[in-house]
């Protein structure tokens, strides 16, 4: 029996999951809209409800450094950030993955400066997309909670050993109270398990050196190990999702699909807009449009094969990007086309850049995307909702 449902915002739900897991170390630096996570977690620390060593660092560069080192040392370590925080720690992102430290970082997705803006988009997490981190998206508060519990299982898997981002949309989820069904704490603890470190630094009887310099002879090899670990992570994610369904009754997939099977037009979307897209699809279906939508919950490793399968036979695919590689495309769009390359017929592929810096996306906005596709009005790259 699960405890009764809670009214909780996204940040607090993440903190609550952390409390249930009780990590060894947490180091973080405040930034809107992530702050509530560390604030709630600080309360747990101050009240002695967790065993965690909580380190209030002086910057995000140090936040991720402390976490990477702590995890290397042999401690299960969590952190959280957003926007400039992720930008400020950028140097450490590929180092953390290369050092194979499976720490968990919640990202309260927020636009990156400039201009400075505290609202939601995916500029922050997209800056991490090359860096060798697993990346999970959540549609709502329940999922932010669930992903927080699932993440360490994927990341810490003996053959994965990669850090993992848990994304939740800033304000839209972080600051929104929704209804969630939490798991019992002991269920969470059993599911996540004790942390077993590989070659922990603190094992001083077997001294290991971490973080050596590579010449051209070894660097590529070490990076290739990451390629293999990512391939493994793709498998492990599916397994862990299955296990999680058993304890929670909630089913997750690397690619979440909504009414896609018979759809002619689909939208691909990340994060909370997936929910709004579902509502738009419902309306379109009522109007007779064969619409569907999907979310690559596991954004890294990129589920190329499943996405190709998903797009098979569609007339149009709208790839919605809450970020823009300026002077080119949204980040998801070209990769979706690359995935579609495996198909005999590539559907019409359209890029919709939307929601930058917190521009709200409504059901009508998303409906209009489908209407564009149906009517043949879509450009290759479309700027949705920018007031010119």
């Amino acid at each position: 029996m699960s405890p009764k449902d809670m009214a909780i915002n996204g940040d607090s739900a993440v903190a609550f999951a952390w409390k249930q897991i009780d990590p060894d170390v947490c180091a973080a630096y405040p930034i809107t809209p992530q702050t509530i996570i560390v604030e709630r977690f600080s309360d747990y620390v101050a009240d002695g409800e967790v065993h965690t060593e909580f380190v209030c660092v002086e910057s995000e560069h140090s936040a991720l450094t402390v976490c990477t080192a702590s995890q290397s040392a042999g401690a299960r370590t969590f952190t959280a950030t957003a926007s400039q925080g992720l930008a400020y720690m950028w140097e450490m992102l590929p180092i953390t993955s290369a050092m194979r430290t499976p720490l968990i970082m919640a990202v309260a997705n927020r636009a990156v400066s400039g201009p400075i803006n505290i609202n939601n988009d995916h500029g922050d997490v997209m800056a991490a997309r090359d860096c060798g981190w697993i990346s999970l998206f959540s549609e709502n508060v329940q999922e932010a909670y669930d992903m927080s519990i699932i993440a360490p299982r994927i990341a810490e898997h003996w053959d994965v050993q990669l850090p993992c981002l848990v994304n939740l949309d800033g304000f839209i989820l972080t600051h929104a109270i929704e209804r969630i069904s939490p798991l019992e704490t002991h269920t969470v603890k059993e599911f996540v398990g004790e942390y077993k470190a590989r070659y922990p630094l603190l094992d001083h009887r077997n001294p290991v050196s971490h973080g050596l310099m590579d010449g051209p002879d070894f660097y590529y090899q070490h990076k290739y190990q990451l390629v293999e670990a990512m391939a493994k992570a793709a498998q492990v994610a599916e397994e862990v999702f299955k296990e999680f369904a058993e304890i929670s009754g909630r089913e997750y997939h690397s690619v979440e699909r909504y009414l896609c099977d018979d759809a002619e037009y689909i939208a691909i979307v990340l994060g909370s807009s997936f929910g709004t897209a579902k509502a738009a699809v419902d309306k379109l279906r009522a109007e007779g449009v064969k619409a569907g939508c999907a979310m690559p919950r596991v954004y890294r490793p990129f589920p190329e094969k499943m996405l190709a399968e998903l797009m098979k036979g569609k007339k149009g695919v709208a790839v919605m990007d809450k970020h823009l590689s300026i002077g080119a495309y949204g980040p998801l769009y070209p990769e979706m086309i690359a995935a579609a390359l495996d198909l005999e017929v590539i559907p019409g592929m359209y890029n919709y850049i939307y929601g930058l810096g917190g521009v709200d996306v409504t059901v009508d906005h998303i409906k209009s995307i489908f209407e564009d596709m149906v009517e043949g009005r879509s450009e290759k790259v479309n700027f949705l909702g920018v007031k010119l």
Partner: protein
Amino acid sequence: MVEYKDMLIGGRTDKPGSAEGFKTGDWRSFVPVVDMDKCIDCLTCWVYCPDDSIIIKDDKMAGIKLSHCKGCGICASVCPKKAIAMVED
């Protein structure tokens, strides 16, 4: 060199002190030569040798580890008894 299949994850190595296998002796242009008669086993050379190349046996100065000595000349210059001379290698 290390094969791919033998490389630990994370660029780590669990072979502590493996650099001993990297011989810096061939960097040397001059080599320290010890006059054991002058030597008083004060170990001053040992504490200052940057390459841990002064061999100590039973608290006594027992020669130079030529595999790694880079020939910097510090031992010679700090020896209170001028027991070490640097000669072309």
